[in-house]
């Protein structure tokens, strides 16, 4: 394409729009559903369909370990998978600020296409809008995912039961810290990479072998602490966590300590929490660990008998304290 920047023309529905669709979107994401360029696509899933939608805004758009494009695929694919489903189809909507560099858009679309291919999902519908400069911050992407349920009934946070084990599929806080460091241009160079990745293949393997899994959730915004509080609240059970067993990269731990951030509240984009009957916990952990995205999986706690819906942390030195839900955004403290 000759233009270097996105113009309002690209959203006009006319010739420029068509060229953008064919030369950027179809070139990277084209398939039997999209190529027809009809008003809608026709798809089929199983008897029960899991649906999830999410809109992605991230600053910066490109960060160590990913970009808004891969994130928009992973985020929605993972949400669908957490219901106990196999993600099959995605739709995507782009809101682009006038003046956005076309080269960047192309990189992002290519990255989405790669992520979708890796996840084994088809992009079946899409939309592009261009808004005047200042009306949006560079680029927003919405994705909606459809998947077929692999179980008889969808998984829910309310499924946790007394005595269940709580597993997590790997190191916590990497995505949140990687994006934070990239956005703030922090003077220390943290080699931390976002963990953004699709989890659906690992989930399918897990559910095939351990269909007794009670809860799957991905601890994205608000981090592990917030998602566990949601599970505790939904199930009405206390969750007891062992701090010493939480997998956290030493680099992330040190950087967070310096910045006054808590890795348990930082977003993850390639991790899941699994609540499973304790009799099947070891097997489930083994399955998580055999996948690259679950290599550092760990058993981190258990569901307690109290019905107060709290998350209680047993600290490294053997004390006990609450782990509350995140309130507002984390603000670094005065050092």
């Amino acid at each position, binding site marked *: 394409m000759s233009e270097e920047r996105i113009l309002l023309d690209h959203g006009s529905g006319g010739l420029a729009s068509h060229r953008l669709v064919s030369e950027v979107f179809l070139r990277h994401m084209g398939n039997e559903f999209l190529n027809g360029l009809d008003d809608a696509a026709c798809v089929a899933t199983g008897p029960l369909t899991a649906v999830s939608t999410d809109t992605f805004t991230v600053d910066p758009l490109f960060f160590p370990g990913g970009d808004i494009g891969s994130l928009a695929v992973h985020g929605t694919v993972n949400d669908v998978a957490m219901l106990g489903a196999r993600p099959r189809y995605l739709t995507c909507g782009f809101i682009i600020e006038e003046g956005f560099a076309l080269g960047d858009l192309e990189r992002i679309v290519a990255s989405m296409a790669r992520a979708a291919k890796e996840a084994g999902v088809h992009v079946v519908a899409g939309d592009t809008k261009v808004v005047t400069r200042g009306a949006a911050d560079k680029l927003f992407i919405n994705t909606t995912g459809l998947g077929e349920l692999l179980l008889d009934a969808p998984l829910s946070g309310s499924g946790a039961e007394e005595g269940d084990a709580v597993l997590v599929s790997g190191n916590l806080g990497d995505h949140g810290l990687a994006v934070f460091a990239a956005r703030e241009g*922090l003077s220390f160079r943290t080699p931390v990479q976002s963990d953004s990745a699709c989890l659906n293949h690992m989930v399918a393997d897990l559910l095939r072998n351990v269909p007794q899994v009670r809860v799957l959730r991905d601890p994205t915004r608000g981090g592990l602490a917030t998602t566990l509080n949601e599970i505790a609240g939904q199930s009405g059970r206390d969750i007891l966590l062992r701090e010493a067993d939480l997998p956290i990269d030493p680099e992330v731990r040190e950087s967070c300590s310096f*910045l006054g951030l808590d890795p348990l509240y930082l977003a993850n984009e390639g991790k899941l929490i699994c609540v499973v009957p304790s009799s099947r916990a070891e097997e489930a952990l083994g399955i998580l660990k055999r996948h690259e995205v679950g290599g550092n999986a760990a058993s981190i706690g258990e569901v307690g008998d109290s019905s107060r819906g709290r998350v209680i942390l047993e600290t490294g030195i053997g004390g006990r*304290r*609450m782990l509350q839900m995140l*309130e507002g955004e984390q*603000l670094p403290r*005065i050092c």
Partner: protein
Amino acid sequence: MLQNMTEKNNKAADLRELRDPDFCRGLARKLQEMLDRDVRFMEVCGTHTMSIFGSGLRSLMPRGLHHVSGPGCPVCVTHGSDIAAFLELAQTPGVMLASFGDMLRVPGPRGKSLKTAQAEGASVRICYSPFEAVQLAESNPDREVVFLGVGFETTAPAVAATMEMAHGKSLANFSLYSCHKLIPPALEALAGKPGIRVDGFLLPGHVSSIIGTEPYRFLARDYGIPAVVGGFEPGDILQALLLLVRRIKSAEPGVDNEYSRAVKPEGNPRAQEVMHRVFEPRDALWRGLGTIPSSGLGLREEYAALDAERRFSLSRTGGEDPPGCRCGEVLQGAISPGECPLFGRTCTPSSPVGPCMVSSEGSCAASYHYDVDAL
């Protein structure tokens, strides 16, 4: 035996041991054995507050040992009239405020905060170091960048060095609003309060690494209150408490240093020098404690051109605490956070009424977040 333990810790600086559950439980047992009456100790450092709650140490404290948080959170002790001035600055056309992050949510008059001002269009940037504020001024020549200097002796030297740099560069669009405060005068104000219920002070490790241990001698000498400088690992704090309880039991008040791997008796002379070159002591208004003589740091005359208070005419009105808020009493250790009727009800970290619920280092926020039995 205690002496050996402290020496060993300082020589090996073995942080793993200071976090080791068995080591810490052993120290807690020793503390329990030594205690023969109720003891209330106060820490005056947000990092100690965080460590005591966050590590779960509070739940391991022997019965009879009571922990009270004092005025050790810089955000919490910043007076309402200063918050009002920040908000006034934020609304001044052309001004860009540069602040440490946890100042943003502190409510000022009518519940407004820098965060709400930001949502209404004010330009407020979060900085991690004062040097970043100078960079902001350089890259925004059409804006007046004002750095909100909040913090104790730990922060003041870096701010002072920044002011020297800005002065050297003759930056015309940069200034400092100094709310810097000093810990020893606040301790003196607390120690001299009639009816104070503190048997010993756990002194702040970071502040002490700058000022040393000498400035605290008056606590034992004039007020008969023992004090100990402590590090931040759970084992550090327990060892410091052992030293404190020993002093209390033997009725020999003195100032000990558990954190000698970081704190020298004379402190850090270079940091003190830059602080004294740029700042001079002045009376300061503390939330909860009122005006304390020579407890704040103002810019010296040579730096008048970089002084936001002189550059902008600020009214500094509206310094009263919000109705019902008892942060003042919490900061003096007179009540625990849970004793404030607003705690956890109308005052939560997401909609704080007072500053002690705002900063992650505030004792109300720490209690809300961590205390299993607080709510």
